[in-house]
């Protein structure tokens, strides 16, 4: 239930604030993100995503890659713009079956082997949880955002989002297994930096079901 509430919060955060037209001559949003673990102690914030909502932009042509390697998705958190496509190559010597049951973008890529790649488009904003039907430990989250203004948090906890249109927007920070996205209002003025700080709390990885909606049964029995 908590997972559903979290996804609802994140999804609402993505779509709330309607697509406004971007204003020319923008500024930057810079700042820091801190993440605390489920014991309340600070943990590494590297890889968390900071994104802005309130305006829309067309998707770039780039096709990000989420590799299946060593029975993990790499990276396991990806932000893209609505309309982009993601490539899912299998780099493991075993079959994987990538799927999502998320209402924002359900799909089933079937099982495929090392060297094979499948692509999937993500036309609408939302949160898409991606799993492997064979290996329950494989999990990734795709944030499908309404614009291109997002950034990954660096090892020192900082981030910078350039060319942000002038206006007041909502900034969010999110990481996998976050209890809820952190958010703050930010006002961007032309040619200036708007500095913000976001505190994010990370919980435990939520349980998930296979593509049939069932619990994974005896997960060690048939897999490598």
């Amino acid at each position, binding site marked *: 239930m908590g997972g*559903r509430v979290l996804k609802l919060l994140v999804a609402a955060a993505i779509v709330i604030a309607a697509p406004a037209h971007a204003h020319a001559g923008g500024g930057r949003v810079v700042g820091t993100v801190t993440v605390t673990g489920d014991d309340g102690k600070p943990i590494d914030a590297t890889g968390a995503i900071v994104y802005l909502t309130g305006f829309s932009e067309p998707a770039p042509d780039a096709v990000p890659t989420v590799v299946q390697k060593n029975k993990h998705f790499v990276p396991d958190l990806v932000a893209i713009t609505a309309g982009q496509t993601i490539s899912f190559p299998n780099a493991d010597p075993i079959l994987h079956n990538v799927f999502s049951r998320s209402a924002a973008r359900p799909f089933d890529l079937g099982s495929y082997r090392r060297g094979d790649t499948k692509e999937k488009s993500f036309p609408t904003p939302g949160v898409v949880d991606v799993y492997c039907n064979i290996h329950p430990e494989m999990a990734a989250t795709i944030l499908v955002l309404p614009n291109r203004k997002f950034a990954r948090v660096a090892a020192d906890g900082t981030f910078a989002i350039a060319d942000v249109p002038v206006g007041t927007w909502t900034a969010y920070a999110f990481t996998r297994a976050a209890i809820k996205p952190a958010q703050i209002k930010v006002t961007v003025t032309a040619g200036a930096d708007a500095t913000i700080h976001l505190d994010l709390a990370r919980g435990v990885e939520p349980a998930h079901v296979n593509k049939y909606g069932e619990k994974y049964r005896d997960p060690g029995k048939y897999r490598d």
Partner: protein
Amino acid sequence: MTRSAALVALALISLEGAAHAGRSHFGWLYDTETVPERGVELEQWLTDQHRQGPTHASETGVWWAPVIGITDQVELALPIEWEWTKSDLSSPRTFLARYGAELRWRLVTSDPVDAPDWVPYVRVAIKKPITETEAAEVDGDLVLSYTQCRWHAVANVGVYGDVHTGDDVWSTRSGAGVSIEVTDELRLGGELYGEKSLAGGSSDDDWVTVGPNLSWTHGRFWVSASYGIGVYNIATAGAPRIKWAVAF
């Protein structure tokens, strides 16, 4: 917030996708879904017909096959069929009827988001009758489905033949149906189906039926069924067909 953003927000309230309600929503009719690449389903049909022709032929058939996803749009079935038959001209008997191979090709993407409303689909099969050493059975169907919100409709046109040396029998079959989503897992609807001799057969073999159908999916299991009520040349016992499958 614009109207479109509000709609997207509403759509996202249900964040976990519903199970797909069955690979087939029909009993007598073919549908257009396919097994994902390298997926396998064990599929079984049970069919019952009681004809009103002069010989009062009755036939109960069991069709069993693994269905293998070759790609996301092409699947291969390897059916084995058993039959029980009885008529005024022959004693009841149960026998292994035929085996063969069947290729099913969905001509557009199977992706639930990218797929168009109209989906064309082709199937071809060749089978070896067990009781006739120098014969083959071939059949094929063109299927078109249309999906809009909770509604799903199909139309089928097909032909099948018993190919013997100089003694071929050809027939056609066609039908149409509709299926409406009632819950995430359950659909109800109705369908019309008929078969007609083309060459080498007898009009006594022609028949038409119409009736309700349902489909239900639960996890990796799905079942669909239709109970055909006699319209032409089918006895009041009707013409039920039930299909079920388990996915792996």
